[in-house]
Structure formats: structure tokens, C-alpha cells
């Protein structure tokens, strides 16, 4: 079952991905696969790092390995944001 991704999170994921891959933003669509975007394993690591910084989350190795396209990536990020402990008051 897929997570519903907020427009704001999706937009930030697309932007982070485009910046990391040095791609025009319009080329990075939710439907695009990593293969279509020419993202190899090393690129993937850089993207995960950029997303961790962008959203202040920790992406576990095992869930990162399963991601194949932009939508899955955004869903995974959204899930981690939901799971993130609330900041201490």
C-alpha cells in the first residue's frame, strides 16, 4: 500500500533530486524511473544523502535498496517524516 505524499514533500523531493543529479527540474517527474533518469548506484547514495539533509531524516539502508523510481522515493521520504519523533518541547 502506498503512502500519500503531500504536494510540498513531493516538490522538495523532485527539487533535491534534480539538484543532486544536475538535471532540469521538469525532467524529474514522479513517474520517472531511476533507470530513465540515468541514476546509478553511486548517484543513489548522493541522492539519499541530500534527502536526509533536506528533511532531517535517516534513511535505513534496507529500505533504500528497494526504491526504483521517483514516486517510491517520495513515498519513502513521506513515511519517514510521519515516523519522525516530534521535536522535544
Amino acid at each position, binding site marked *: 500500500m502506498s503512502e500519500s505524499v503531500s504536494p510540498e514533500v513531493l516538490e522538495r523531493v523532485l527539487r533535491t533530486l534534480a539538484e543532486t*543529479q*544536475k538535471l532540469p527540474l521538469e525532467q524529474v517527474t514522479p513517474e520517472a524511473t531511476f533507470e530513465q533518469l540515468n541514476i546509478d548506484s*553511486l548517484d543513489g*547514495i*548522493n541522492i539519499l*544523502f541530500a534527502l*536526509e539533509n533536506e528533511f532531517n531524516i*535517516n534513511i535505513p539502508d534496507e529500505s533504500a535498496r528497494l526504491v526504483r523510481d521517483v514516486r517510491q522515493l517520495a513515498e519513502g521520504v513521506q513515511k519517514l517524516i510521519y515516523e519522525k519523533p516530534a521535536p522535544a518541547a
Partner: protein
Amino acid sequence: MTRRVAITGVGCVSALGNTAPEFWAACLAGKSGISQIGGFDMTGVRFQNGAQAHGFDASRHFDGKQLIPLDRFAQLAIVAAREALAQAQLELTDDERSRAAIVTGSCYGGKTSEDAGFAALYRDAQPRIHPMTIPRLMANAGASALTVELGWQGPVWTVSTACSSANHAIGQAFWLVRHGLADVALTGGSEAPFTYGSLKAWEALRVVSPDTCRPFSKGRNGMVLGEGAGMLVLEPLDRALARGATVIAEIAGFGMGADAHHITQPSAAGAARALRLALADAQLTPEAIGVVNAHGTGTAANDVTESAAIRDVFAGNLQDLRVTASKSLHGHALGASAALEAVATVLGLQAQRVIPTANFLERDPECDVPLCLEQQPWDHAAAVSNSFAFGGLNAVLVFTRKLGRPQSPVPSLS
């Protein structure tokens, strides 16, 4: 199989410019690249001057994505290598490409990336550091990136022997080509040591000059750090001549040895031994040598022991010898230094000139060598380039001008 080895391309990036011709013009002019260190806050560092490659703009050579896994030291190596290869105009067969060698030297590897990552972790309490930190910091990063760029699949490795790294690298690449283990080789060294952490480490060792590098001069007060890369293309002389390549010079010999004496104090005996081994490897006597590109760091200790070694080995021809110390111009670029000095030495052989030692104040009786202070025409058939590293690891190269090495008997090792 033993073959004569030609140098058919050189490239370098340094404080003296972004290309070998710029480097050579500054060497001839005695124009030192030492200036105020920039790029980060130098507050609290006792020395302020260095020889940075201020003119190097990575974005002119790489697109943004190419740069992600490349530390500055690897960028410098690649750019210098491209220049050397463009000059050599090699056209390799598939078989030659499968055996083509790359041997590089670097003292520090990707120190800039490592330092930035550790500052983020330790100082800024960041939870993570850049995922390319490991590929950036490995000392073979430049060599490995070049294999991908060129498709060269032969012996490729990186030597790390502090200030002798590039001479050890060039010497081993030379032996690969001389003995038929590779048909062509790309070799040299690169270094990018300007990080706050490494400058503080040098400061603590108390060997860095507060003003400038004055090799063999009275009043010298230490070395000045530099950065850059030098690369040379090597191939058998016969191959170079057959394809009509321009032969800049030949490498004729390499000698290396260890002082087995002290971790930082140099030894004149160890330096002299490496010089004699290099001459023996080149089958030349000391009288054949017209120029010494000295290790010449400008530290109290090195210049005295190196002077003693030079006076010992070249006792019979000091009047026909000129010593030059180009670190006064391009700084001490650690693992790249010997590569920059190799480029200076072979361009000197090609031009039949000897380059000046800058920043000289007055003669030091403890450094009594025939030091060149003004560039001059100098008829010389052969030159040596010295590198003597911390840890007592000495490496000396012998170069000859392209017309052919002078005939002389094999020297005896004493």
C-alpha cells in the same frame, strides 16, 4: 627487455599557472607563486603564506556531476594529465591500452574532503557526512578516475611517501616502460593540502616559514606549502621516434633508498646514496650531470644535509654544476612536488636553461652549492631531481636531453 624511455608530454597545474607553458614562463622569470593563503579563515595560524593554485577553476574542466566524487587533488591530477596527453598525442592500440600504466603520487589524498567531513561531524555536530567522502579521499582517486576517462587497463597504483611520492611514482612508471611491462605510462603526482586542519598540523611541526621559502640561503626559516599536480607521459624512445613524436627529454635512471635514521631529521649519507643509485641506474657518472633540481625545501635541516650530499657526490664537477630549488617558486606541494620539479627539469633540458632559485638573501657557508639565482642558458646533457621525504625515504630521478645520453662508464658505488 630494456628500452630507453622518452617523455613525450608534460602537464601541470600549480601556483605558477594552469598549464606547463605558464609554469615554465614563471620558472624562467623567477616569479614566485607564494602569497597570502585564501579560501578559509586563517585566524590563529602562525604562518599566512602558501603557494595555492589560485587560477584553477574546476568548473572549466568538469561538469557539476563529474565533480561530485572528485576531491581537489584528483581534479588537479586529471587536468594535468589531460594536458600531458594532449601534448603527447598518443594513439594506442587496444593491446597497448590494455597494458597502459598510470602511477601517481600523493601524500595526503583527498584531505580537503576528509577535513570538511570531519569538521561537520566533530565541530558542527552534523549527523552525517558526504557519501562521497571515501571515494574522494582515497589516494588513488585521481589515478582511478583517469583509468575510466582513458580506458587504460594496465598496472595502475598510487604511491604515498610524503614529499618523495611523485619521484617514487615516476621512477616506478619509468621502470615499467623500460622493462616492457607497459608500453606507455602516465605518471606524476598531485596534492591539495590547504585545509585548516592540515595547516595547523604543519604549524605544530614548526617547519613552515612565516614569510617565504629561501632554499640554501642564510636567513631561511622554513618551507612554504604548495598545491598542484604534475604529469608526464612516458613511452619507449623507439616508439616515440617511430611515430614522429616530439621527445622532450628521456628518463635515464632512478634511485631510491631509506635513511634508516630518523623520522624527520634528514641524513646526508642517505641522500648521497640515493643520488649514486640513480646515477648507477642511468649508467652515468656524476660528471655527466649539469643541473641538480634540489629537494631544497628552505628548512634549516634539509638544505644543510642536501648540500653535503651534493658536495659529496659531485665533488669532481661542482664548477660545471648548477643547483636550482624550484620550491622557492611553486612551494612545497608535498606529494606533487617532485612531479612539478620533474616538469621543470625536463623543460630545462629541452630549453638548455637553468631556472633561478627565488627569495635568496645571502650565502650560507653551510649550504655551499653552486646555486643558480638568475635563469641562464646552460649547456647540459643530463640533470637530476632530488626528493627526500620525511621518514627518510629518498628518491632521485636522472633525466637526459633528447639528443641521447652522454657516453660515460658505469660509476662505481662507494
